[in-house]
């Protein structure tokens, strides 16, 4: 898996291999479908690389092992799927509060409850609003191909370190299980040569001791801490927004979709374009920070935004927040983990298109 040539990789493997290449030093995880292959991949690869792999007794343990390893400055990752990510919420809140860099992969399954394991996007709220308690955010990447899974996982480690924040890779069962050609574009990093972290713990040799904690009993200091986090979040909102556009010039209707849904959406939009409709696609690559400004600006000319989500409608909140009433916003949701075909979706787009354009005549 070390060559820089194109290879056919499963989504979960691409994540794993990229993590190894990014210098991930510790992986802690607990099995859950549909991401078992990632845990299994790490079991093999980390052993090969003489790094740390540990199957924890639970997701709770895993996220707290992440907390511990990260506090010592290690690059560290964990992965799970929806119910397991729910169990990690307390830990994630702590990690965010303590500003510990970490990479968390959620290969979503259908919820709520045990749900099922077909592709789903119903953890959007949890990922973007912080399912845990308190004012915090995690940087959320939503890749739409195995190549992008690989690329964004690699970057996630750098962003986590740069902002001292948990970064989430949000994929679904299809992204995780699917194989596609992948090329690793950069050289693997040697964990021993990563820049050192000034804040990290490692024994107080040659300096005074320090501690990392989230308990701040003094309300004034706690408020200060929270505003500090807030300002960091604002910096991230300014700098880290990513999205992809397709055919947006002159579009009357913009479809907004991410991940697997965006792939379907792109094909559906193409079909519509072939039929001379002015339809475009906005694909947020970061879900938080969400491309607010961009969609706001697009709302100056776009008449309607159709969000397509494999959920009962979660991202639509962010689209509406971005649009600020300057254009219509509607939802095509498929919360049952039945991935629609491009043909189906293109019919939905067409219907919406005709209706909107009629209103405008």
């Amino acid at each position, binding site marked *: 898996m070390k060559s820089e040539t194109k290879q056919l990789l499963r989504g979960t493997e691409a994540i794993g291999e990229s993590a190894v290449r990014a210098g991930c030093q510790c992986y802690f995880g607990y099995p859950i479908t549909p991401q078992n292959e990632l845990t299994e991949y790490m079991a093999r690869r980390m052993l090969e690389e003489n790094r740390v792999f540990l199957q924890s*007794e639970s997701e709770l*343990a895993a996220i707290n092992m992440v907390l511990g390893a990260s506090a010592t400055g290690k690059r560290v990752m964990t992965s799970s799927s929806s119910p397991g990510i729910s169990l990690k919420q307390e830990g994630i809140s702590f990690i965010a509060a303590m500003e510990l860099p970490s990479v968390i992969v959620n290969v979503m399954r259908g919820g709520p409850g045990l749900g099922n394991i077909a592709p789903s996007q119903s953890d959007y709220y949890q990922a973007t609003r912080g399912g845990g308690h308190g004012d915090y955010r995690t940087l959320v990447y939503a890749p739409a191909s195995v190549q992008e899974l690989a690329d964004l996982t690699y970057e996630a480690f750098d962003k986590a370190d740069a902002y001292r924040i948990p970064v989430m890779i949000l994929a679904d069962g299809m992204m995780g299980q699917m194989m596609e050609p992948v090329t690793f574009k950069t050289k693997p990093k040697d964990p021993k040569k990563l820049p050192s972290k000034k804040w990290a713990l490692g*024994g107080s040799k040659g300096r005074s001791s320090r501690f990392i904690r989230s308990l701040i009993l003094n309300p004034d200091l706690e408020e200060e801490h929270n505003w500090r986090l807030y300002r960091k979040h604002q910096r991230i909102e300014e700098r880290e927004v990513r999205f992809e556009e397709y055919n947006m010039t002159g579009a009357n209707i913009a479809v907004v979709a991410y991940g697997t849904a965006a792939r379907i959406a792109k094909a559906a939009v193409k079909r519509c374009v072939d039929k001379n409709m002015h339809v475009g696609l906005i694909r947020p690559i970061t879900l938080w920070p969400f491309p607010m400004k961009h969609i706001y600006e697009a709302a100056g000319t776009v008449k309607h935004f159709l969000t397509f989500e494999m959920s009962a409608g979660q991202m639509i909140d962010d689209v509406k927040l971005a649009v600020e009433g300057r254009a219509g916003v509607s939802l095509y949701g498929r919360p049952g983990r039945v991935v629609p075909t491009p043909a189906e979706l293109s019919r939905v787009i067409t219907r919406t298109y005709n209706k909107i354009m009629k209103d405008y005549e």
Partner: protein
Amino acid sequence: MSKVMKKRKPARPSTMKDAVTHYCPGCGHSVIHRLVAEVIEELGIQDKTIGVPPAGCAVLAYNYFDVDMVEAPHGRGAAVCTGIKRGNPELVVFSYQGDGDLAAIGTAEVIHAANRGENITIIFVNNAVYGMTGGQMAPTTLLGMKTTTSPIGREAHREGNPVNVCELLAVLGGSAYLERTAVNSVKGTIRTKKAIRKAFRTQLEGRGFSLVEILSPCPTNWKMSPQKSWEWIDEVMMKQFPLGVIKDTGKGEA
């Protein structure tokens, strides 16, 4: 009387910060803190030790210990230690946990850390009660004992039985050193320090999981004077929690 008097080794070890603790008068935590700090000082491991304080009365332990520390969410000390130690086998890692923290919400984490033989040390302060949150029943609360959540006294059929943590962990393959002591006497305090030293040594020797369970007074929530608390440990607690080395897989001296 007017002879020149010289201060013996000061009470405060160099591994403790110069801070007044927030603990109640007569609280065992204060003493145990000092014992742990003394052992760290004596073993010369201050600059390679990482401590993990709990949620519990000892939540502010990082204000007292002069070593690197990282807070664990309630009950997860063993998991946090595991993360640290796996990533940094060269460090000395200990967590400091209460009985609610370790024996209730943190049960799974401590059992599995012990079972894996994680090479870490746990200072387990058993005061038979949730101190910090105001005296609720703990897994180690004694039968008949009244707490705010066992208002007519704990009964086995309703609130369950006291949990003997050392005996439970002894069953597991990876636990290397388990001892139960008490800080309710001069002797007990000396013995406790020895046990703590032995536990850290166990880790330094790479022998696996070590834990010292310390019966510790909580005069506030027991609603007793510190002196009465000491007596109560002798007369009541030790019946349920007998002192001694519960498990030791090595031969090494204390």
